[in-house]
């Protein structure tokens, strides 16, 4: 229910009075001093009034509907905790997806909250300001509902307890962290294209729908509830993203090349982050919803295709890395899970080789690639593990300077060859995993020379606990890094087969079914 004002006024007019009409152009201070970040990116805005409000929601309706969602959600969270709902999930392997979520996604919901507060302060246009600030509120909601929902898992399973500490430190978490840091440190317009449009509109369905449906498929009412509840805000966010890109493009023809370059960059940055989702869908869910490949076809190829078709009238082209991403869909998840299998000692969740039934599913979903390229690897690992030699990689990987993912990605047309790309800047070599990342580096080297690359930081000696002594005989650098990460050795990391999580889950489940 929106504010009931004069019956004569329509929704749009009413909303105008409630938002835009409140704003004015300052005269005691210059516009440039009040909104100092509006010019340096080169985007030209002539008339902020032309922005189309995505949803016309006043604060009273916002409070009312959001409070209703919150009441429902917390009722479910409470019931889930009281009833030991965690014991109803398919098996404890599933819980590792939640650890990935809490450490990798939740802190970035918070980053989005701060980012939208920033642009919500900086835009001189009242329409986008208000929409951005509502999104900022929504994003802190998402961070908090996730922390609260997963709090009960944290009480019973290992690997959730240090999410805050780990987000700023652990090697693979620097992938999503650097993504959001990159967006927030960019200018306000680029942030909107990066997060508001490229991430929220083009890629968010690939992130959340699989996670939430995964929760539903695996009996996790708690995670399903927070996921769906968060998604209900997402339609507002997606619409803001679409309206803002259209608005910028309509304002001035000079904006097109800038926006296109940002789209190329942020599609690729976002796609690299989704690597984690691909492996989650295909390898970490005991009961799978759909394959990464199927999700990519529905949400990227069909839906994204329709979107870029629609934007073509502004001169926007499909982002640069699009066709490579479409080629990768047969390979991405398999290659990615191998990275975590390799470095399973350094991650705060458990890893495992897929079992025979899992491989049947993978083979059916990836008829052209799984048996040919990937099955022998998992079979080999299983054999080694059965003989007491579970493979862990003990040497640190080379990372991409831009996306920060270990350099496992293969050439677009040859899944057997790792792609290496090299640039030189100010007399030093920089390495990237792909044309997409190299392109990003070459455009803004001043930015990416600053990357806090976890592997390099380890070698610089910045990732050991204070009491560690590298000069002591028998100093084990990997073990010390893991300690600095706040990962309990043998408890939070290593193979699922030997984990406390597995043992506890089975014991507790047995208590539920017997005496």
């Amino acid at each position: 229910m929106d504010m009931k004002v004069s019956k004569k006024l329509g929704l749009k007019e009413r909303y105008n009075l409630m938002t835009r009409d409140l704003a004015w152009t300052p005269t005691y201070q210059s516009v440039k001093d009040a909104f100092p970040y509006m010019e340096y990116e080169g985007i030209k805005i002539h008339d902020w009034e032309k922005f189309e409000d995505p949803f016309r929601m006043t604060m009273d309706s916002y409070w009312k509907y959001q409070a209703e969602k919150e009441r429902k959600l917390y009722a479910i969270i409470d019931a889930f905790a009281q009833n030991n709902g965690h014991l109803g999930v398919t098996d404890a392997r599933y819980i590792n997806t939640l650890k990935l979520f809490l450490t990798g996604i939740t802190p970035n919901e918070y980053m989005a909250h701060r980012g939208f507060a920033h642009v919500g302060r900086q835009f001189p246009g009242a329409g986008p300001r208000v929409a951005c600030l509502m999104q900022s509120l929504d994003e802190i909601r998402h961070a908090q509902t996730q922390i609260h929902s997963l709090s009960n898992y944290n009480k019973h399973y290992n690997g959730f307890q240090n999410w805050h500490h780990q987000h700023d430190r652990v090697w693979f978490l620097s992938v999503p962290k650097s993504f959001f840091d990159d967006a927030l440190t960019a200018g306000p317009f680029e942030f909107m294209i990066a997060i508001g449009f490229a991430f929220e509109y083009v890629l968010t369905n690939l992130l959340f729908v699989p996670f939430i449906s995964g929760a539903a498929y695996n009996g996790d009412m708690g995670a399903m509830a927070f996921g769906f509840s968060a998604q209900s805000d997402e339609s507002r966010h997606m619409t803001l993203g679409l309206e803002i890109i259209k608005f910028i493009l309509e304002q001035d023809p000079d904006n097109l090349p800038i926006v296109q370059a940002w789209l190329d960059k942020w599609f690729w940055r976002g796609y690299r982050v989704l690597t984690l989702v691909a492996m989650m869908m295909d390898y970490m869910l005991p009961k799978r919803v759909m394959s990464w490949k199927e999700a990519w076809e529905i949400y990227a190829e069909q839906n994204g295709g329709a979107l870029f078709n629609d934007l073509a009238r502004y001169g926007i082209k499909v982002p640069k890395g699009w066709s490579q991403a479409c080629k990768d869909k047969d390979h991405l998840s398999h290659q990615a899970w191998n990275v975590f299998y390799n470095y399973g000692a350094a991650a705060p969740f458990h890893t495992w080789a897929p079992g025979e039934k899992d491989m049947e599913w993978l083979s059916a979903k990836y008829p052209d690639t799984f048996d040919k390229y990937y099955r022998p690897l998992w079979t080999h690992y299983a054999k080694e593990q059965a003989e007491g030699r579970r493979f862990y990689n003990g040497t640190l990987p080379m990372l991409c300077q831009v996306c920060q993912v270990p350099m496992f990605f293969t050439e677009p047309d040859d899944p057997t060859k790792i792609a290496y790309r090299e640039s030189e800047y100010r007399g030093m070599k920089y390495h990237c995993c792909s044309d997409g990342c190299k392109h990003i580096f070459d455009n803004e080297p001043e930015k990416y020379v600053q990357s806090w690359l976890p592997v390099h930081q380890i070698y610089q000696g910045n990732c050991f606990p204070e009491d560690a002594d590298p000069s002591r005989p028998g100093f084990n650098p990997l073990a010390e890094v893991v300690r600095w990460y706040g990962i309990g050795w043998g408890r939070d990391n290593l193979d699922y087969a030997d984990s406390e999580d597995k043992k506890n889950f089975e014991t507790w489940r047995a208590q539920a079914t017997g005496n």
Partner: protein
Amino acid sequence: MQIDLRTVSITPLRQTYNHVAERLGADKPASRYIEGTMDVQATHNFHYRPTWDPEHELFDPRRTRLVMKDWYALKDPRQLYYGTYTQARARMQEVAEADFEFVESRGLAERFDDEARRTALDFYVPLRHVAWGANMNGAFQCAYGYGTAITQPCLYAGMDQLGIAQYLTRLGLLLGNQGDLEAGKQAWMQAPAWQGLRRVVEDTWVLKDWFELFVAQNVALDGILFGLAYREVDAVLSERAGPTVSMLTRFQAEWFQDVTKWVDAVVKTAAAESAENKELLGQWYARWRGRVREALAPVAELALGADGAAALERAVAAVDARMHKAGLAV
């Protein structure tokens, strides 16, 4: 097979997240406010400097001169996280909605005393722009502040101000019409009585120190203005023409009580941290108290005539007393 999972008695491995347990000093169950607030903001190893502020890290405690050893000491006594925040405001809006409904359905607006109506429209309607300015400032504090404990309620307060601007808009439309909103904006932009206040608001927009902005906006401007508008002016109008306006501004009056608890607690904790903080907060308060007081004098007069000056002094004194109690040398 139906499994009754409730029957399983499990001893949890731990009660809360490690960073929360460290703050609580023990591994014990923590409130949702604490779990959803403490240490939620990233603190280390930022990858890139902001292109809009290369001098600072993305989140950087040096964006204010105030110094805190632990920014999470600035907790919100109301313990608002998103869930409790929206539910608290939803209750308030439900009451406000009922009040607006009542005023409308009983024809109270039409029957309202015309002189009081004029005063209400002339005084309250331009305040929607002050609230808009406050919304900008709440966003600023949230964006560039440090630590979720303080940035979170700053955004909540900023969004509350947007809601307040919208309630004032409805007040204008109910007691008057769209033309009164236009006239109010015209006055805000040009009428001499409002220019001092508009200048204050625009000056707060260019402050770089977010904590000084907190003192300017949340302590001085909100403190004095809300005291004047929703206590002093409200009382006079109520006496003169009945409680219609009180009903239409009840949200603001309740909100001011609520937010005062938080603002005072923040100032108190920040001042108690060090003599330097106390000194700094005192300077900021003195500066903005003076600016706001001066700017509000013609506005108070506009609403209350000759009684305006005394009403304004009472509003200022009330904030002085609060700040004194919070530890500032006032």
